[in-house]
């Protein structure tokens, strides 16, 4: 039975629950907007990375670098779209 529950997976799950709990601090504590956003950005992106590496096995084949490159390129483009739009509509209009 125990071979069905590998350590790596369980540690990943526990860690993702810990990250969720950490993100919840912004709800229960009275943080400033900047502090709250910092907490959320860190917990969300670490959580995403965790899923990518532990559960999605992104790095297990020899296409590793293409897959990582592709995903990181896309994340960069996504951030550019989000922050570029915010620059246009919220911060500088």
């Amino acid at each position, binding site marked *: 039975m125990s071979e069905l529950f590998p350590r790596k997976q369980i540690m990943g799950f526990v860690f993702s629950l810990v990250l969720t709990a950490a993100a919840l601090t912004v709800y229960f504590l009275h943080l400033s907007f900047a502090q709250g956003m910092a907490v959320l950005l860190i917990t969300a992106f670490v959580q995403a990375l965790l899923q990518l590496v532990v559960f999605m096995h992104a790095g297990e084949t020899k*296409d590793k670098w*293409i897959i990582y490159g*592709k995903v990181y*390129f*896309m994340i960069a*483009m996504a951030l*550019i*779209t989000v922050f*570029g*739009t915010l*620059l*246009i*509509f919220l*911060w*500088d*209009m």
Partner: protein
Amino acid sequence: MDFFDRFAIPNPSIAIYASMVAIGLTVVAIIAGLTYFKKWGYLWREWLTTVDHKRIGIMYLISALIMLFRGGVDAIMLRAQLAVPDNKLLDPQHYNEVFSTHGVIMVMFMAMPFIFAFMNYVVPLQIGARDVAFPRLNALSFWLFFFGAMLFNISFVIGGSPDAGWTSYFPLAGNDLSPHVGTNYYMMAIQISGIGSLMTGINMITTIFKMRAPGMTLMKMPMFTWSVLVTNLIIVTVFPVITVALAMGTMDRLFGTHFFATTNGGMDMLWANLFWVWGHPEVYILILPAFGLYSEIISTFSGRNLYGYKSMVASMVIISALSCMVWAHHFFTMGQGALANSFFSITTMMIAVPTGVKIFNWLFTLWKGKIRFTVPMLYSLGFIPLFVIGGVTGVMLAMSAADYQYHNTMFLVAHFHNTIIPGVVFAMLAGLTYYWPKMFGFMLNERIGKWAFWLLSIGFCLAFFPMYITGLDGQARRMYTYSEATGYGPLNMLSFVGAGVMAISFALIVYNVYYSVRYSPRNIGADPWDARSLEWATHTPVPEYNFAIEPHVASSEAFWDAKKKGHELFPGKVEKIHMPNSSGVPFIMSAIFFVFGFSMIFSLWIPAIISLIGIFACMAHRSFENDHGRYISVKEIEETETKLRGVN
């Protein structure tokens, strides 16, 4: 009769009734012809169900040429209306419809399938593959594009064409200001063909990364393949954006949401923003494969390897990243502050650098080359100076402070046609002439082709250079007429003449196809241009399995090395080849998509839901189906090879 009223044209005219009759007659003629010559089975077996990348490429090509004709007629109508002041040829509503459909058709349904045609036909051959990574998905991409295009085109005769420009800005495109269904057509047709484009992007990236011939490392890929790879990276990046934007626009128009409305918190400018997040990279999606084709052609006809291979690759990658960071330059005047405008101004100007690198690389490739002035080469040589003019005016427009003067004038229209026609259209015509013998087994007539090239170039200059001047003088784009007192009359007449010359040139190209079908010699061999990359190493016509033996590659010009340096291209012996089976599902599924789109456009909810279920049923069918493809036996391959060697 209320039910049928919605299908009526809101602003009918004689031209529209005439087209209804013409479309009806054409459909009847096609059906009658297919029945009379008993070609239904052939059409279904060999074309509608095919998953062969070469046939799909040819179908893309035919669709693109038909759409070029449709968009070209629109263009002539626009120029005719503007040829003299206070003209009454088109009323304002028709003018709006014609420039809207001209833009959408030329970008989405002419230029896109044209580049997909070359991607599909050439890339697997260039990398020595048997097909693309997902042949069935490839067929689905094509049919989604095709039915999207058909859906867009019937708007002309059923319900009314979109009339809010190819950008379809809200609130103009909203229900209040565009009450008839035209803009619904815009939303659904682009959505459907856009899904196809996204699938092509996934397919091509996988093909190029995973199916290259042994020995072909990334830096030994031919330049066209590189350009296709980079292009598809952009497609996968930005097509999801337009998918979301169109879905939101559709919801605004059909379900009463307020995304882009001016009430209840809606923000019309968000549409412009999302549209250009996709729209700007989209123009690089069009131009990069064009750059790839020019690279192949210039290198072939200069008799030299491409100068600066690595810098070519680097500049394309930089362009692809920068192209996603410049979108706000399309709306400098929308009201955002100086900081945002400066940022987007600078990134826009930066794109000129890698593009300049590419121009110099082509010039250095020509330097000391043995240049052959064939038709593809003439287009490539014409492209360099004309495109530079378009690029330089682009840098003018990139300066946000100065853009307040140019914005929304004919200067802008001149600029983007100046990049798209010598950039994309010339490349497509060059590619068409260059790959024609590989596709169809005979060459296009060079003499007629040269006439067409010169007429097109001269017509282009006549048509678009005057617009720079009238634009700087203040002639606004998208205005259906102007008064005589403005003094724009003579220059607009000149533009009309130029448009006429271009039309003659396109007619010559059509005549050239007819002439060459009749008179061109058929025994041209596999390599009529003395070219350099792998696609010329297989037979003409190309057998369905492309290469009997998998090629082994040692440089980016594998075929040239094989010819000149005695490099062994096909070591090994013939083995049985695995090929995918044909399938009718992509065609059927796309046809259901067409019904779905049509039902959505006219708010017919029950057929929409039924067709949506049909779409999912097709997907479920694909999931449960057991299809392992088929094998071509060694005997069969050897017979084909002997036969093809006999021809050549």
